């Protein structure tokens, strides 16, 4: 039984059809990447998966046991956040609220969970640092730790590597790979960095309002579309 099934999805954004005819499945433990240019409907699809936007037609169904609140989400950074006075711990703990029901305060278990995720992302020493004083890559790790606090089995990432330098990106890719392979976390990632994504992901969905390609990363490399987007670098 797949973790997530999308069937004949149609969604619109600002009155226009943003995507149509999208069908795919994500199995437990998959590393699934959605690629495409700006305006190809990736972000709208993501909003649909998170339940922030309702599809016009088609269906999105999760396996029983996956609650919408149990999805770890890594959104794109906003301007508000870049100058936000908060400690790393405060930010990461806020990920625990999603599982907290109506309790007003954090429990000791929440705090342990936050610490554990900071360690997993190798930023435990930044616990008391000020979020706005961190580098872009460190901030992204903090937000990833927050997402992990919320995540049961599924992680949803929206362009996690935008604006990061190659070395920092490589570090984050390595971490994601580790979370996927060693911890068995299912990852769905949106990206326009096709080159790097193909090396990481198991499955690729290439969107341009309609799905242009859907299959394994290997098949994508062999396909006409994949070759066009990956350029000559495929055989190297």
């Amino acid at each position, binding site marked *: 039984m797949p973790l997530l099934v999308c069937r004949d999805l149609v969604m619109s954004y600002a009155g226009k059809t943003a995507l149509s005819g999208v069908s795919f499945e994500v199995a437990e433990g998959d590393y699934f990447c959605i690629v495409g240019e700006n305006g190809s409907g990736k972000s709208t699809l993501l909003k649909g998966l998170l339940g922030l936007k309702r599809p016009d037609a088609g269906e999105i169904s999760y396996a029983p046991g996956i609650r919408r609140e149990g999805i770890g*989400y890594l*959104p794109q950074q906003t301007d508000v956040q870049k100058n936000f*006075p908060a*400690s790393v711990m405060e930010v990461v703990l806020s990920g625990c609220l*999603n599982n907290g029901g109506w309790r007003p305060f954090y429990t000791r278990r929440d705090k342990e969970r936050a610490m554990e995720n900071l360690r997993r992302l190798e930023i435990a020493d930044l616990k008391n640092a000020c979020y706005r004083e961190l580098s872009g890559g460190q901030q992204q790790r903090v937000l990833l730790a927050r997402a992990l606090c919320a995540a049961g089995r599924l992680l949803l990432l929206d362009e996690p590597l935008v604006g990061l330098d190659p070395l920092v990106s490589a570090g984050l890719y390595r971490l994601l790979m580790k979370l996927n392979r060693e911890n068995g976390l299912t990852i769905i990632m949106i990206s326009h960095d096709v080159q790097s994504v193909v090396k990481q992901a198991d499955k690729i969905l290439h969107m341009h309002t309609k799905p242009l390609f859907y299959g394994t990363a290997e098949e994508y490399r062999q396909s006409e579309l994949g070759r066009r987007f990956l350029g000559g670098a495929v055989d190297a």
Partner: protein
Amino acid sequence: MLDFLVELFSYGFIVRALLVGTFVSLCSALLGVSLVLKRYSMIGDGLSHVGFGALAVAAVLGWAPLAVAIPVVMLAAFLLLRLSDASRIKGDAAIGLLSASALAAGVMLISVTKGMNTDLLNYMFGSILAMQSSDVWLSTLLSVAVLLLYVIFYNRLFAVTFDENFARAGGIDTGFYKALLAFLTALTVVLGMRMMGALLISSLIIFPALTAMRLCRTYRSVIICASVLAVLCFWSGLILSYLYETPTGATVVLINLLFFCLFSLLSLLRRRKRSHSLSE
């Protein structure tokens, strides 16, 4: 010094002003942190002008001022949120539109029926004599309610302020918390505006938060620092305004400005020092 304090507290109006003012400063400092960070700080300004209009109507009709102003301002808060969320008029413009209209309507109403008089001046710039004993109970009760709600929802308000999309994806009803913020702000503004003045009350919301953010590096320390600053500024403003017979609202605002400049300077010095130690 002791004699002076005994003299000060022998006046009923001073005690009332101190009590209500302390609560209002505390509430507005707490709410202000979220409002400033979410770029909603002008909501306080807009609401105070609407409150002025409502007070004018109440004065003309001879009704109890708070009973008219509280529901009207709450309605305005709800409207402002809706306007900035879902219309082609952007948030700041919508607030400007509403607040100028309400202020104009209030001034018009009072000057036509009563002529330009001290009432008008008092509403606009506040008066230390404005608090009656019936107001004190209501103000205290409502302020305590605001403080309690704030503490209970502290973590969730943080989450919604820091990252609305993440909070919403995690099943937190962000619309509810935004509405809560607006309603609590509306309450606080109405409670404080007769003492601070319709034109100056929004400074209680904006100043302590901004000042605290110059130096504090965690959310909790910003909250605590802003609260302490707000109360401190209010007390010293009240005492100075009593001593030198200056308008209370304006005195409090200027003391807030003083602290803001001081904290900005300190933050500048700290940054200098850090970049200096980095370059070595």
